[in-house]
């Protein structure tokens, strides 16, 4: 257990450093906005005094590094400032919208692993065959369109032409579920309402699949590539000569070493999905961070932009630490002195 604890503390340290850098970067981007954010927030009818008062309240007249100091001080107290768009604390806004997005991304991540890895194994085991070529084409198609295009195509086929799934939303209006975690799939179970759980699960299938498609493609291709390499190793040959069945060789001996690079990619794809969720949410009217994020960007709402990006990056870093720990857990000889990349 010791090495894993050391790895955890090291990764936490690096991640905090990176997060600090992210906050500086995004703060710098947000402060090069042309135009006066205070004027934009108050609208054209505000008096010059009102604008000046808001500028003073937001410390906009101070030099940038002083502004960053104020921002950092607030951040350490868990305060991301007030959104100039909704007039509520940014943390309240994000707490309201983030769970829906995370739920979508987690389900999509699950689909990516549950579909991508088996397809990759299948492809490697029967490489050169029909199954392999089919999987190859499908996985290439998966990465070849942005998720909003898949969302449109899936919606047309499986919601309109074949009315199998709902067109929009997270759950039917007839259910009212007490929000505990904000994750509907969890809250419905806490409430013990299994019909509502089924309804929420039914709603999430299409958007999550649209979001997962490119990740499935990548996970498949990577697993296949690594397994094809592993198949050349002598120990596989030995397993063959012992007469082990092909299925056992594939699932046990050839797959295991390929799992580690696949997991790393899954961690990275998680970041892409957090961004791409914006695209899928727009098509399926999913009440997540997307509409809020786009609205605050279009309105140049400084605090909200910085807060949203910071929270998304923090989520990504946490997931990657979890992935790294998983890898350390799976791989007994992981080189602890080196960051796996």
């Amino acid at each position, binding site marked *: 257990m010791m090495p894993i604890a050391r790895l955890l503390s090291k990764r936490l340290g*690096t991640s905090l*450093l*990176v*997060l600090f*850098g*992210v906050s500086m*970067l*995004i703060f710098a*981007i*947000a402060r*090069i*906005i*042309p135009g006066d954010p205070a004027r934009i927030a108050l609208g054209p009818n505000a008096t010059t005094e009102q604008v000046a008062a808001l500028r003073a309240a937001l410390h906009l007249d101070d030099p940038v590094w002083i502004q960053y100091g104020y921002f950092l001080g607030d951040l350490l107290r868990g305060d991301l400032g007030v959104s100039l768009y909704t007039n509520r604390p940014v943390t309240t806004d994000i707490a309201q919208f983030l769970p829906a997005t995370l739920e979508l991304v987690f389900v999509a991540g699950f689909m990516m692993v549950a579909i991508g890895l088996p397809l990759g194994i299948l492809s490697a085991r029967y490489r050169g065959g029909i199954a392999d*070529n089919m999987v*190859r*084409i499908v996985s*290439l*198609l998966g*990465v*070849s*369109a*942005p998720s*909003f*295009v898949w969302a*449109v*195509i899936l*919606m*047309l086929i499986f919601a*309109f*032409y074949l009315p199998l799934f709902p067109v929009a939303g997270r759950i039917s209006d007839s259910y009212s579920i007490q929000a505990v975690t904000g994750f509907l799939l969890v809250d419905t179970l806490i409430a013990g309402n299994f019909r509502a759980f089924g309804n929420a699960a039914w709603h999430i299938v299409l958007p999550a699949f649209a979001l997962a498609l490119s990740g499935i493609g990548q996970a498949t291709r*990577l697993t296949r*590539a690594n397994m094809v390499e592993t198949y050349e190793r002598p120990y596989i040959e030995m397993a063959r000569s012992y007469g082990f069945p092909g299925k056992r060789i594939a699932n046990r001996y050839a797959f295991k070493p390929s799992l580690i*690079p696949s997991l790393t990619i899954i961690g990275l794809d998680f*970041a*892409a*999905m*957090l*961004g*791409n969720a*914006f*695209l899928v949410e*727009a*098509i399926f009217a999913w009440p997540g961070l997307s509409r809020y*994020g*786009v609205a605050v*960007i*279009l309105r*140049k709402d400084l605090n909200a*932009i910085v807060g*949203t*990006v910071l929270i*998304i*990056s923090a989520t*990504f*870093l946490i997931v*990657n630490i979890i992935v790294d720990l998983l890898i350390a857990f799976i791989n007994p000889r992981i080189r602890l002195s080196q960051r796996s*990349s």
Partner: protein
Amino acid sequence: MKRTISILIANPLSLLGVVLVATVVLSALFADFIAPFPEHRGAVVDFANFNKAPEWPYIMGTDLVGRDIFSRILYAYRISLILGVVVLAIAVPIGVTVGLVAGYFGGWTEYVLMRITDIFLSIPPLVLAMSIMGVLEPTLANGMLAVTVMWWPWYTRLVYNITRSEREEGYVLAAEVIGASPLHVIFREILPNCVPAVVTKMTLDLGFVILIASSLSFLGLGVQPPTPDLGSMVADGAKYLPDSWWLTVFPGLAILVAVFGFNLIGDALRDILGADQ
């Protein structure tokens, strides 16, 4: 080079890729001659023919102000390709140089450069580009800037990993022993060994840049109307699903075809050049 091309054409899948990419590039180049309604790339209004399902002469239907969707897709390809080439032309040299320097010198140089790269990599690509676009005016040039800023770190990572493993190879040590300068070792000895991986990634990325740029404009943060753009065409049409399906399906498929073509070629190149992920 000749061998690479002949292998590309011999495999049916990569041949399909070559055909798709050639079609996309040629139709973008010769859009003025192919498009049935070249004037429809701009702010034209033809209310007599608005929102028409595909029928001759509008083989992909017309949009809500009566413009031919097929013609607009051809011109949108032109802009997407220009954007892809410009972004890579700026991002690749920057990313490769940073990766080479970090991997070769190691120590503090490596630590600082790679942590900066990590910072860029830990903001989801689309979110980073969105926040940059949000603070800038939505023009084509700014769109290129936003995508470039998010793109270079991927090349840094790729080249850094290769450089780190090449750094201790015999030929590098030999060059150092006879007194070659770091500049010579980096650009004349190590760089050539990064070329296959970088070229493969560039082929794949031409498709992905088109994909990300269309995602930005889908969110309303890209090229502004009336300039034709595949992403904003999908976004504008999505409200009229499923009845006016041609408004979204054809521009969406247009993105898919182009990116799929580049992916097929890139995938084959990876096999031929033996370049790693």
